[in-house]
């Protein structure tokens, strides 16, 4: 017997989800979490590419020990609703690095939802998300940050930017901060815009066809999300995975 209540749009972390797609998932899927624990001082990195054709739900819990460093980089290019949800618990001096790109067209919603708990003093988190969409697609980033009373000297940053290539595409972001300590830094930036027409004409005037100019501009735009990834090969792999979706569009 299942006791799992499926999510509703009234829950903040589900408000932009595609509920028609969620209905196709078995109820027990909503209770499935991959839990990863990092020992004190440990550094661990994971790189993900979501590129399925059916609705996808990936949920990860990261328990990051004292002074440990958890890095997660992801391309969300699902062909249908695709959600990567991450809950992070940071012990003293721990760090969480997140870089995400949602990219794609069609009618799909692709989203990152993070909840980062700064439970102890001196922990840091840095999240950079870029969204590139066209058609009727939607890209979301919902980042919640909880700073516990004891978590002084917390430094948490979130940066979201969306590039909408066509009218009809959309992006949503909603930072949520719950801060109970007084000596903390929480920075948040968000911007949604279109392709820079001046840059496109400049590139065309030098001989670049429109598709090539667009690919260069999109690559530069999404590269921010993986700038903190200290492995050039992995960086390239993720960028190529994202740009492959753009090429399929052409």
């Amino acid at each position, binding site marked *: 017997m299942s006791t799992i209540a499926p999510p509703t749009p009234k829950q903040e972390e589900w408000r932009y989800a595609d509920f028609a797609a969620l209905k196709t998932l078995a109820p027990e899927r909503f209770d499935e979490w991959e839990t990863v624990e990092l020992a004190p001082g440990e550094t661990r990195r994971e790189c993900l590419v979501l590129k399925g054709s059916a609705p996808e739900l990936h949920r990860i819990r990261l328990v990051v020990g004292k002074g440990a460093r958890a890095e997660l980089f992801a391309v969300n290019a699902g062909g249908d609703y695709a959600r990567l949800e991450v809950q992070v618990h940071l012990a003293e001096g721990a760090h969480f690095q997140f870089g995400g790109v949602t990219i794609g067209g069609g009618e799909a919603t692709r989203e990152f939802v993070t909840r980062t708990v700064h439970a102890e003093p001196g922990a840091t988190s840095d999240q950079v998300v870029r969204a590139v969409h066209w058609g009727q697609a939607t890209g979301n980033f919902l980042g919640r940050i909880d700073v516990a009373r004891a978590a002084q000297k917390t430094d948490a940053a979130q940066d979201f930017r969306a590039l909408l290539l066509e009218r009809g595409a959309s992006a949503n972001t909603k930072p949520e901060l719950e801060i109970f300590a007084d000596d903390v830094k929480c920075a948040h930036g968000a911007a949604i815009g279109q392709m820079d027409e001046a840059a496109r004409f400049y*590139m065309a005037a030098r*001989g670049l066809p429109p598709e090539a100019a667009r690919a260069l501009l999109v*690559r530069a735009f999404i590269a921010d999300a993986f700038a903190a990834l200290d492995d050039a090969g992995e960086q390239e792999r993720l960028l190529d995975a994202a740009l492959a979706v753009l090429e399929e569009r052409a």
Partner: protein
Amino acid sequence: MLKIDNLHAEVGGTPILNGLSLTVNAGEVHAIMGPNGAGKSTLAYVLGGRPGYEVTEGSVTFAGQNLLALEPHERAALGLFLGFQYPVEIPGVSNVQFLREALNAQRKARGQAPLSGGEFLKLAREKAALLRLDMEMLKRPVNVGFSGGEKKRAEMVQMGILDPAFAVLDETDSGLDIDALRIVGEGINAIMRKPDKGVLLITHYQRLLDYVRPDFVHVLSKGRIVKSGGPELALQLEEQGYEAVA
């Protein structure tokens, strides 16, 4: 080489060019001077094919083709270079990456083999040295953080690398100090003063013309050429002003 005939163009429904005619033959440098609002930059953008600049009448033939029927990147591949008055910043895209892709896209369109990374860097180094631009700057994002003068020198490095048959240079001299003006002038001569090339220099001032001697000088006013002459016309304009001369 370039033949503009009775060109009318408008921007946002406002007529800017009103029957402009001009022929530039291979081996010639023409200067276009004129007061603010005469249509100088509009002429440059119309030739480059910028969206929003609509041709309502007239024709432009370049290298035997109807230029106006071509997309901006096709015009570039045909050998047309547009030097921007305000070069655009492109964060995250390095000059080297941008120019190599642009050059190889042009070469592909012309049926030529692409340059390898090594070949391209050798070419870029040579042209950067010609314009005395630090090669390190070409590794940085396009025009980002460049001073006004550096942007103009970088434009000329781009021109050197792309080696066009024809250059339309829109106020390339603005924002340059005296030394940079000389370097840019000498760069234009080295790259473009050749029997098989042509240049259209758009400028407000005589001073660039001290370095790049034009064969013809035209005065543009209210969207058409109202007076043409030799280099002496530029000096006369400098002394007496547009209103007295044109």
